[in-house]
């Protein structure tokens, strides 16, 4: 079910670095075929002959099939000087775009899915953290999230209690603010930009803005790809493929407060693309 809300949002469809003069990229956005082209000095997006809105930010090309109701969200920290911006390409996943976002908001899976990197089996506990739906900004936030991590980042040496904040500025985008191993008091930024291909398939574009001058670029990309490919085998095996919004369908616990808020927020915004609204 494609609803207005979903239609009128901004979605990532390419990396800015793919825009070579004369290029023509074919993409599928919410089951519709669109084209991105670059004529040397300008980039355009089309659906057939219809011109689509377009902007380039955070190293990605963003477009919309409708009339975007609000501007693309801001990530002010991501545009600070001194950060390394790392676009990781895209990974195609056979799951709902919303399941991909929700998995990114979840820390409880680290010990079993990212064993030895983001979590360890003998440190599985998720402590209390704060979650809020910010009505003014219309965003979901989780703060004071802490988790033990054997290797929190490519640059990390040894296990640490990592501090996290999560922010959902749009239904298909998730931003993670994470303890920065290289610069005390700063947050590294790791985001997941999700392009809904259909309700049950998506393209995921991870992007990072890090304070890390040491680690080779390729290692940063491949660290992120490692993590996301560990998630992919989970995401492709969740049943149903759609994200259930009926609270009776699945069984959350206190560790899932972010996911509960995210689902509630989707329901309130009436964002149902990729969601299952009636219990199967």
């Amino acid at each position, binding site marked *: 079910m494609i609803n207005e809300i979903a239609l009128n949002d901004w979605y990532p469809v390419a990396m800015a670095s793919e825009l070579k003069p004369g290029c023509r990229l074919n993409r599928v956005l919410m089951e519709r075929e669109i084209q991105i082209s670059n004529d040397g000095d300008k980039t355009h997006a089309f659906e057939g002959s219809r011109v689509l809105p377009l902007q380039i930010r955070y190293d990605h090309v963003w477009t919309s099939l409708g009339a975007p109701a609000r501007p693309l969200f801001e990530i002010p920290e991501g545009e600070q000087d001194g950060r390394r911006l790392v676009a990781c390409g895209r990974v195609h996943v056979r799951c709902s775009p919303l399941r991909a976002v929700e998995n990114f908001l979840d820390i409880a899976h680290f010990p079993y899915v990212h064993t030895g990197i983001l979590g360890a089996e003998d440190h599985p506990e998720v402590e209390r953290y704060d979650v809020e739906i910010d009505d003014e900004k219309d965003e979901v936030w989780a703060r004071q999230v802490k988790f033990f991590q054997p290797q929190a980042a490519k640059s990390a040496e040894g296990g640490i209690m990592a501090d996290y904040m999560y922010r959902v500025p749009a239904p298909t985008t998730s931003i993670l603010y994470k303890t920065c191993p290289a610069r005390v008091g700063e947050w590294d930024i790791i985001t997941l930009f999700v392009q809904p291909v259909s309700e049950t398939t998506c393209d995921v574009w991870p992007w990072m803005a890090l304070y890390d001058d040491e680690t080779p670029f390729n290692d940063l990309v491949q660290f992120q*790809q490692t993590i996301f490919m560990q998630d992919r085998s989970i995401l492709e095996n969740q049943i149903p493929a759609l994200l259930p919004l009926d609270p009776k369908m699945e069984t959350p616990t206190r560790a899932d407060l972010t996911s509960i808020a995210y689902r509630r927020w989707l329901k309130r915004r009436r964002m149902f693309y990729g969601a299952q609204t009636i219990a199967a």
Partner: protein
Amino acid sequence: MKLYDYVLSGNCYKIRLFAALLGIPYETVAVDLYPGKEQTRPAFLRLNPAGTLPVLQDGDLTLTDSSAILTYLARRHDPTGQWCPQDPELLAQLVGWLSFADDLTRTSGAARLHAIFKKPIDSVAAQKGAHALLRRLELHLCDQEFDDSSFLLGKAPTIADIACFPYVALAPDGGVELDGYAAVQRWIYAIRKLDGFLPMPGIHPLHEHPDKPLPEGLNARLEA
């Protein structure tokens, strides 16, 4: 020793896995296969004109094929000869399986690249080809089980197992499910259970190892 490596490559994983099993130290150079297509750039092509990973450099020696690298590491670092047997019959069969492993790359590996990165290939043909190979593997592994072996050759693991393992275990990434290949699943378990086994994204470590106890909190509660 230097391995030019890409974390999501099954062919690179063969080398990382084997080096881990044998405890061979090495350093890695991450090559940006995706999204950067670094293997197509002049600097990399000077290293390996075939434009593929893995590449291994040991002193003056440069090897550019995963089977060649496995053979080299086995002959150089395994004095027992277990991993690359010299018995004429076994060696001949081993070479056959190394070639089978390349067929797996072309089918299961290609289907995976299509599923993950949308590499433009005929994915249905690749998946069909992968299933044809899995059937051959299943038949052979059943034979081996009748002779009380869990591995491809003789009774012990060899580089044939290592070469075939990645694109079999990663087949589900490319939409090639392993349900119904009972012997193949047991073989995957046998390899994951080897001492020093190294996982990769899409292949879990052996969480179900019999030596792994129940979590402490749970044990305490069960005893109470």
